[in-house]
Protein backbone atom coordinates (compact mmCIF):
# COMPACT_ATOMS: atom_id res chain seq x y z
CA UNK A 1 0.00 0.00 0.00
CA UNK A 2 2.89 2.40 -0.69
CA UNK A 3 0.79 4.40 -3.16
CA UNK A 4 -1.91 4.93 -0.54
CA UNK A 5 -2.46 8.54 0.62
CA UNK A 6 -4.77 10.14 3.18
CA UNK A 7 -6.90 11.20 0.21
CA UNK A 8 -7.35 7.65 -1.04
CA UNK A 9 -7.98 6.50 2.54
CA UNK A 10 -10.71 9.18 2.77
CA UNK A 11 -12.45 7.81 -0.32
CA UNK A 12 -12.04 4.25 0.90
CA UNK A 13 -13.83 5.34 4.09
CA UNK A 14 -16.47 7.16 2.05
CA UNK A 15 -17.22 3.98 0.10
CA UNK A 16 -17.37 1.94 3.33
CA UNK A 17 -19.80 4.43 4.88
CA UNK A 18 -22.01 5.13 1.85
CA UNK A 19 -24.23 2.01 2.13
CA UNK A 20 -25.16 3.00 5.70
CA UNK A 21 -27.11 5.92 4.26
CA UNK A 22 -29.82 3.27 3.68
CA UNK A 23 -29.80 2.44 7.41
CA UNK A 24 -29.40 5.93 8.83
CA UNK A 25 -32.01 7.64 6.63
CA UNK A 26 -35.05 5.61 7.78
CA UNK A 27 -33.97 5.89 11.42
CA UNK A 28 -33.55 9.68 11.05
CA UNK A 29 -36.97 9.99 9.40
CA UNK A 30 -38.43 8.00 12.28
CA UNK A 31 -36.91 10.42 14.81
CA UNK A 32 -38.18 13.43 12.87
CA UNK A 33 -41.69 11.98 12.80
CA UNK A 34 -41.70 10.90 16.46
CA UNK A 35 -40.28 14.20 17.76
CA UNK A 36 -42.67 16.44 15.84
CA UNK A 37 -45.62 14.24 16.79
CA UNK A 38 -44.54 14.58 20.41
CA UNK A 39 -44.88 18.36 20.00
CA UNK A 40 -41.44 19.70 19.00
CA UNK A 41 -41.12 22.21 16.18
CA UNK A 42 -39.13 21.35 13.05
CA UNK A 43 -36.28 23.63 14.22
CA UNK A 44 -36.14 22.04 17.68
CA UNK A 45 -36.18 18.53 16.18
CA UNK A 46 -33.35 19.40 13.82
CA UNK A 47 -31.38 21.05 16.65
CA UNK A 48 -31.64 17.78 18.57
CA UNK A 49 -30.10 15.80 15.71
CA UNK A 50 -27.32 18.30 14.98
CA UNK A 51 -26.36 18.86 18.62
CA UNK A 52 -26.55 15.27 19.82
CA UNK A 53 -26.23 12.94 16.74
CA UNK A 54 -27.20 9.84 18.72
CA UNK A 55 -30.47 8.23 17.69
CA UNK A 56 -31.08 6.02 20.70
CA UNK A 57 -30.34 8.81 23.20
CA UNK A 58 -32.56 11.26 21.29
CA UNK A 59 -35.48 8.81 21.31
CA UNK A 60 -34.93 8.21 25.03
CA UNK A 61 -34.95 11.94 25.83
CA UNK A 62 -38.11 12.65 23.81
CA UNK A 63 -39.89 9.64 25.32
CA UNK A 64 -39.04 10.67 28.90
CA UNK A 65 -40.00 14.30 28.31
CA UNK A 66 -43.45 13.24 27.10
CA UNK A 67 -43.72 11.23 30.34
CA UNK A 68 -43.03 14.46 32.25
CA UNK A 69 -39.81 13.10 33.78
CA UNK A 70 -37.63 15.60 35.71
CA UNK A 71 -34.91 17.20 33.56
CA UNK A 72 -32.11 15.55 35.56
CA UNK A 73 -33.61 12.10 34.91
CA UNK A 74 -34.06 12.88 31.20
CA UNK A 75 -30.39 13.88 30.91
CA UNK A 76 -29.03 11.02 33.04
CA UNK A 77 -31.01 8.35 31.16
CA UNK A 78 -30.19 9.64 27.68
CA UNK A 79 -26.51 9.99 28.58
CA UNK A 80 -26.51 6.47 30.06
CA UNK A 81 -27.69 5.22 26.67
CA UNK A 82 -24.71 7.09 25.22
CA UNK A 83 -22.13 5.72 27.67
CA UNK A 84 -21.03 3.27 25.00
CA UNK A 85 -19.56 6.28 23.16
CA UNK A 86 -16.96 6.59 25.94
CA UNK A 87 -15.98 2.98 25.26
CA UNK A 88 -15.74 3.76 21.52
CA UNK A 89 -13.55 6.75 22.38
CA UNK A 90 -11.23 4.54 24.43
CA UNK A 91 -11.21 1.87 21.74
CA UNK A 92 -10.20 4.31 18.97
CA UNK A 93 -7.50 6.05 21.04
CA UNK A 94 -4.70 3.57 20.19
CA UNK A 95 -5.54 4.02 16.46
CA UNK A 96 -6.07 7.78 16.02
CA UNK A 97 -4.90 9.20 19.35
CA UNK A 98 -1.72 10.65 17.81
CA UNK A 99 -3.68 13.05 15.54
CA UNK A 100 -3.73 16.82 16.34
CA UNK A 101 -6.12 17.84 19.11
CA UNK A 102 -8.49 19.76 16.82
CA UNK A 103 -8.88 16.67 14.60
CA UNK A 104 -9.56 14.52 17.63
CA UNK A 105 -12.18 17.03 18.82
CA UNK A 106 -13.98 16.86 15.44
CA UNK A 107 -13.69 13.07 15.42
CA UNK A 108 -15.21 12.99 18.93
CA UNK A 109 -18.22 15.05 17.82
CA UNK A 110 -18.81 12.63 14.90
CA UNK A 111 -18.05 9.46 16.91
CA UNK A 112 -21.29 7.54 16.33
CA UNK A 113 -21.96 3.84 15.85
CA UNK A 114 -21.42 3.32 12.11
CA UNK A 115 -18.19 5.34 11.67
CA UNK A 116 -16.81 3.71 14.81
CA UNK A 117 -17.64 0.16 13.72
CA UNK A 118 -16.54 0.67 10.08
CA UNK A 119 -13.24 2.20 11.20
CA UNK A 120 -12.36 -0.46 13.78
CA UNK A 121 -13.23 -3.18 11.27
CA UNK A 122 -10.90 -1.56 8.70
CA UNK A 123 -8.02 -0.85 11.13
CA UNK A 124 -8.11 -4.38 12.54
CA UNK A 125 -8.65 -6.45 9.41
CA UNK A 126 -7.31 -4.38 6.47
CA UNK A 127 -3.76 -3.58 5.32
CA UNK A 128 -1.90 -1.32 7.79
CA UNK A 129 -2.47 2.45 7.61
CA UNK A 130 -0.56 5.47 8.86
CA UNK A 131 -2.26 7.56 11.60
CA UNK A 132 -3.11 10.25 9.02
CA UNK A 133 -4.72 7.64 6.76
CA UNK A 134 -6.72 6.26 9.70
CA UNK A 135 -8.10 9.72 10.50
CA UNK A 136 -8.89 10.31 6.81
CA UNK A 137 -10.69 6.96 6.64
CA UNK A 138 -12.76 7.85 9.72
CA UNK A 139 -13.87 11.19 8.24
CA UNK A 140 -14.54 9.41 4.95
CA UNK A 141 -17.08 7.18 6.72
CA UNK A 142 -18.55 10.20 8.55
CA UNK A 143 -19.13 12.19 5.34
CA UNK A 144 -22.10 10.21 3.97
CA UNK A 145 -23.42 9.07 7.39
CA UNK A 146 -23.76 12.19 9.57
CA UNK A 147 -25.22 14.68 7.01
CA UNK A 148 -27.78 11.97 6.17
CA UNK A 149 -28.77 11.97 9.84
CA UNK A 150 -29.40 15.75 9.78
CA UNK A 151 -31.09 15.85 6.38
CA UNK A 152 -33.52 12.99 6.98
CA UNK A 153 -34.38 14.14 10.49
CA UNK A 154 -35.55 17.32 8.76
CA UNK A 155 -37.42 15.30 6.11
CA UNK A 156 -39.18 13.27 8.81
CA UNK A 157 -40.04 16.40 10.78
CA UNK A 158 -41.46 18.19 7.73
CA UNK A 159 -43.30 15.24 6.21
CA UNK A 160 -44.59 14.48 9.68
CA UNK A 161 -47.03 11.85 8.45
CA UNK A 162 -47.06 8.57 10.26
CA UNK A 163 -44.83 5.87 8.78
CA UNK A 164 -46.82 2.63 8.67
CA UNK A 165 -45.59 0.43 11.56
CA UNK A 166 -45.77 -2.57 9.17
CA UNK A 167 -42.58 -1.26 7.56
CA UNK A 168 -40.76 -2.26 10.76
CA UNK A 169 -38.20 0.52 10.34
CA UNK A 170 -37.33 0.04 14.02
CA UNK A 171 -35.49 -3.13 13.08
CA UNK A 172 -33.20 -1.60 10.45
CA UNK A 173 -30.77 -0.59 13.19
CA UNK A 174 -30.35 -4.00 14.92
CA UNK A 175 -29.80 -5.66 11.51
CA UNK A 176 -27.08 -3.14 10.61
CA UNK A 177 -25.27 -3.57 13.94
CA UNK A 178 -25.33 -7.38 13.69
CA UNK A 179 -23.99 -7.20 10.13
CA UNK A 180 -21.15 -4.90 11.24
CA UNK A 181 -20.13 -7.17 14.11
CA UNK A 182 -20.00 -10.51 12.28
CA UNK A 183 -16.77 -9.90 10.27
CA UNK A 184 -15.08 -8.82 13.51
CA UNK A 185 -15.52 -12.26 15.07
CA UNK A 186 -12.10 -13.48 13.98
CA UNK A 187 -10.95 -15.50 17.01
CA UNK A 188 -12.52 -17.63 19.73
CA UNK A 189 -11.91 -14.73 22.12
CA UNK A 190 -14.04 -12.40 19.97
CA UNK A 191 -16.87 -14.96 19.73
CA UNK A 192 -16.85 -15.58 23.48
CA UNK A 193 -16.75 -11.84 24.19
CA UNK A 194 -19.87 -11.38 22.05
CA UNK A 195 -21.65 -14.40 23.59
CA UNK A 196 -20.96 -13.30 27.17
CA UNK A 197 -22.02 -9.73 26.34
CA UNK A 198 -25.34 -10.97 24.92
CA UNK A 199 -26.12 -13.25 27.88
CA UNK A 200 -25.22 -10.62 30.47
CA UNK A 201 -27.12 -7.86 28.62
CA UNK A 202 -30.24 -10.04 28.51
CA UNK A 203 -29.93 -11.08 32.17
CA UNK A 204 -29.53 -7.45 33.28
CA UNK A 205 -32.08 -6.00 30.85
CA UNK A 206 -34.32 -5.06 33.79
CA UNK A 207 -31.82 -2.61 35.27
CA UNK A 208 -32.82 1.09 35.16
CA UNK A 209 -31.21 3.75 32.94
CA UNK A 210 -30.16 1.20 30.34
CA UNK A 211 -27.38 -0.04 32.63
CA UNK A 212 -27.80 -3.56 31.20
CA UNK A 213 -25.89 -2.39 28.14
CA UNK A 214 -22.90 -1.41 30.27
CA UNK A 215 -23.02 -4.62 32.31
CA UNK A 216 -23.13 -6.69 29.12
CA UNK A 217 -20.44 -4.66 27.38
CA UNK A 218 -17.97 -4.72 30.26
CA UNK A 219 -18.57 -8.43 30.97
CA UNK A 220 -17.97 -9.21 27.28
CA UNK A 221 -14.74 -7.20 27.18
CA UNK A 222 -13.46 -8.95 30.32
CA UNK A 223 -14.35 -12.37 28.89
CA UNK A 224 -12.55 -11.61 25.61
CA UNK A 225 -9.42 -10.40 27.42
CA UNK A 226 -9.44 -13.51 29.67
CA UNK A 227 -9.75 -15.92 26.74
CA UNK A 228 -6.97 -14.10 24.87
CA UNK A 229 -4.61 -14.50 27.83
CA UNK A 230 -5.58 -18.16 28.21
CA UNK A 231 -5.10 -18.88 24.49
CA UNK A 232 -1.66 -17.26 24.58
CA UNK A 233 -0.56 -19.36 27.56
CA UNK A 234 -1.79 -22.50 25.74
CA UNK A 235 0.29 -21.64 22.67
CA UNK A 236 3.34 -21.04 24.81
CA UNK A 237 2.96 -24.45 26.46
CA UNK A 238 2.80 -26.44 23.19
Amino acid at each position, binding site marked *: MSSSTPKSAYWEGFRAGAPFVLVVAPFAILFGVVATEA*GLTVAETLAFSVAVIAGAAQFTAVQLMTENAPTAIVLASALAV*NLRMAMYSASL*TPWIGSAPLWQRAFA*AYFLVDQPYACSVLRYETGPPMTPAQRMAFFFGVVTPVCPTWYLFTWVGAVVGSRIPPEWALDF*VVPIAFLAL*VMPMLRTAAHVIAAAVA*IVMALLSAGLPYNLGLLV*GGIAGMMAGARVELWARSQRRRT
Partner: protein
Amino acid sequence: MSLADMDRGTLWLVILGLALGSFALRFAFLGVIGNRPLPEWVLRHLRYTAVAVLPALVAPLVLWPGATGGETDPARLAAAFATIAVGYFTRNVLAAIGAGAATLWALLYLLG
Protein backbone atom coordinates in the same frame (compact mmCIF):
# COMPACT_ATOMS: atom_id res chain seq x y z
CA MET B 1 -47.89 15.40 27.78
CA SER B 2 -47.47 17.10 24.43
CA LEU B 3 -44.05 18.70 24.23
CA ALA B 4 -45.72 21.68 22.52
CA ASP B 5 -46.83 22.74 26.03
CA MET B 6 -43.39 22.23 27.54
CA ASP B 7 -41.40 25.18 28.86
CA ARG B 8 -39.00 26.15 26.04
CA GLY B 9 -36.16 26.97 28.45
CA THR B 10 -36.33 23.47 29.91
CA LEU B 11 -36.42 21.89 26.46
CA TRP B 12 -33.30 23.76 25.32
CA LEU B 13 -31.62 22.88 28.60
CA VAL B 14 -32.17 19.20 27.73
CA ILE B 15 -30.88 19.65 24.16
CA LEU B 16 -27.77 21.58 25.25
CA GLY B 17 -27.11 19.29 28.22
CA LEU B 18 -27.32 16.23 25.98
CA ALA B 19 -25.07 17.82 23.38
CA LEU B 20 -22.36 18.75 25.91
CA GLY B 21 -22.68 15.44 27.80
CA SER B 22 -22.49 13.35 24.61
CA PHE B 23 -19.45 15.26 23.41
CA ALA B 24 -17.75 14.83 26.80
CA LEU B 25 -18.33 11.06 26.63
CA ARG B 26 -16.94 10.86 23.09
CA PHE B 27 -13.98 13.12 23.83
CA ALA B 28 -13.15 11.53 27.20
CA PHE B 29 -10.40 9.15 26.08
CA LEU B 30 -9.61 10.40 22.57
CA GLY B 31 -8.93 13.94 23.76
CA VAL B 32 -7.38 13.38 27.14
CA ILE B 33 -5.19 10.32 26.58
CA GLY B 34 -4.33 10.91 22.94
CA ASN B 35 -0.87 9.68 22.10
CA ARG B 36 0.16 8.41 25.52
CA PRO B 37 0.66 4.64 25.53
CA LEU B 38 -2.00 2.63 27.32
CA PRO B 39 -1.09 -0.32 29.55
CA GLU B 40 -1.26 -3.73 27.88
CA TRP B 41 -4.17 -4.96 30.03
CA VAL B 42 -6.25 -1.92 29.01
CA LEU B 43 -5.50 -2.51 25.32
CA ARG B 44 -6.39 -6.17 25.74
CA HIS B 45 -9.86 -5.18 26.99
CA LEU B 46 -10.32 -2.47 24.37
CA ARG B 47 -9.79 -4.99 21.57
CA TYR B 48 -13.19 -6.48 22.50
CA THR B 49 -15.15 -3.22 22.85
CA ALA B 50 -16.98 -3.44 19.53
CA VAL B 51 -17.77 -7.16 19.64
CA ALA B 52 -19.09 -6.81 23.22
CA VAL B 53 -20.97 -3.49 23.20
CA LEU B 54 -22.79 -3.78 19.85
CA PRO B 55 -24.23 -7.28 20.55
CA ALA B 56 -25.19 -6.17 24.09
CA LEU B 57 -27.02 -3.21 22.54
CA VAL B 58 -28.81 -5.33 19.98
CA ALA B 59 -29.72 -8.50 21.95
CA PRO B 60 -32.67 -7.01 23.90
CA LEU B 61 -33.94 -5.27 20.74
CA VAL B 62 -33.95 -8.62 18.93
CA LEU B 63 -35.70 -10.61 21.67
CA TRP B 64 -38.04 -7.90 22.97
CA PRO B 65 -38.61 -5.31 20.21
CA GLY B 66 -40.16 -2.04 21.38
CA ALA B 67 -42.32 -1.91 18.24
CA THR B 68 -44.26 -5.01 19.35
CA GLY B 69 -44.53 -3.82 22.95
CA GLY B 70 -41.72 -6.16 24.02
CA GLU B 71 -43.38 -9.27 22.58
CA THR B 72 -40.91 -11.64 20.85
CA ASP B 73 -41.61 -11.45 17.13
CA PRO B 74 -40.81 -14.45 14.86
CA ALA B 75 -40.10 -12.25 11.81
CA ARG B 76 -37.61 -10.02 13.65
CA LEU B 77 -35.97 -13.02 15.32
CA ALA B 78 -35.57 -14.84 11.98
CA ALA B 79 -34.22 -11.67 10.36
CA ALA B 80 -31.58 -11.38 13.10
CA PHE B 81 -30.49 -14.99 12.62
CA ALA B 82 -30.37 -14.59 8.83
CA THR B 83 -28.13 -11.53 9.28
CA ILE B 84 -25.85 -13.44 11.66
CA ALA B 85 -25.61 -16.53 9.44
CA VAL B 86 -24.93 -14.66 6.19
CA GLY B 87 -22.55 -12.28 7.95
CA TYR B 88 -20.63 -15.11 9.54
CA PHE B 89 -20.19 -17.17 6.38
CA THR B 90 -19.67 -14.38 3.83
CA ARG B 91 -17.93 -11.84 6.13
CA ASN B 92 -19.72 -9.31 3.92
CA VAL B 93 -21.57 -6.51 5.75
CA LEU B 94 -23.89 -5.58 2.89
CA ALA B 95 -24.82 -9.17 2.06
CA ALA B 96 -25.73 -9.64 5.72
CA ILE B 97 -27.89 -6.50 5.83
CA GLY B 98 -29.59 -7.54 2.59
CA ALA B 99 -30.34 -11.03 3.91
CA GLY B 100 -31.70 -9.63 7.19
CA ALA B 101 -33.91 -7.03 5.53
CA ALA B 102 -35.22 -9.50 2.92
CA THR B 103 -36.05 -12.07 5.62
CA LEU B 104 -37.75 -9.44 7.79
CA TRP B 105 -39.99 -8.05 5.06
CA ALA B 106 -40.75 -11.45 3.50
CA LEU B 107 -41.84 -12.90 6.86
CA LEU B 108 -43.77 -9.79 7.91
CA TYR B 109 -45.64 -10.06 4.59
CA LEU B 110 -46.25 -13.82 4.85
CA LEU B 111 -47.18 -13.83 8.55
CA GLY B 112 -48.97 -10.48 8.05
